[in-house]
């Protein structure tokens, strides 16, 4: 049976989870004030290297973890993938609406940039949870 040719190979999944974990850890550390070096920029806004690397790890981690095949990929997993993507997109739109209605200036920019990450993270979390729940709920009648 043919499945989406646009999914990455299964091997990317574990790499994705490792990158995702590193990215989240890096961003938490950065939020706590830890940083080093300077990322290349336009000189107007300074950005630490830890933040840039963590952001990259988070985005690539989400891409690899969320858009690589499962070992056993079938149309049920495809349905879970599709539903998770819809949920993530709805959340993104809700965040965007909330940002437009309730935030201004720098806070608005922070909120929108959080939304860019959130759509990917929510998709990965939702898909991973739903696949795990489906596996756990198996009732074998052997």
């Amino acid at each position, binding site marked *: *049976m043919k499945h989406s040719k646009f999914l990455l190979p299964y091997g990317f999944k574990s790499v994705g989870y490792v990158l995702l974990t590193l990215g989240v850890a890096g961003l938490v550390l950065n939020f706590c004030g830890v940083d080093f070096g300077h990322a290349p920029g336009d000189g107007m806004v300074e950005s630490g290297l830890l933040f840039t690397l963590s952001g990259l790890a988070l985005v690539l981690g989400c891409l690899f973890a969320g858009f690589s095949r499962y070992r*056993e990929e*079938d*149309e*049920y*997993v495809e*349905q879970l993938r599709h539903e998770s993507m819809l949920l993530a997109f709805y959340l993104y739109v809700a965040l965007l609406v909330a940002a437009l209605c309730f935030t201004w200036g720098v806070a608005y920019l922070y909120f929108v940039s959080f939304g860019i990450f959130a759509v990917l993270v929510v998709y990965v979390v939702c898909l991973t949870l739903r*696949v795990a729940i*489906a*596996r756990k*709920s*198996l*009732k*074998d*009648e*052997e």
Partner: protein
Amino acid sequence: MKNKLKVCRAELDLTQAQLAERIGVTRQAINAIELGKFVPSTVIALKMSRLFNKPIEEFFFLEETD
């Protein structure tokens, strides 16, 4: 859509895992179909039909709301 996949599977004395392997899907998919959480594609339905040696209408039924 309702189904009596479980009955057909029992008639052939197949486990969910064995049925899944025979038609090339995951065990989660078979479980989800039996629980009515997932409606399979025509390809899977036809594979089941061939395996059970029965027409599709004998194990998948439309409900009034469908």
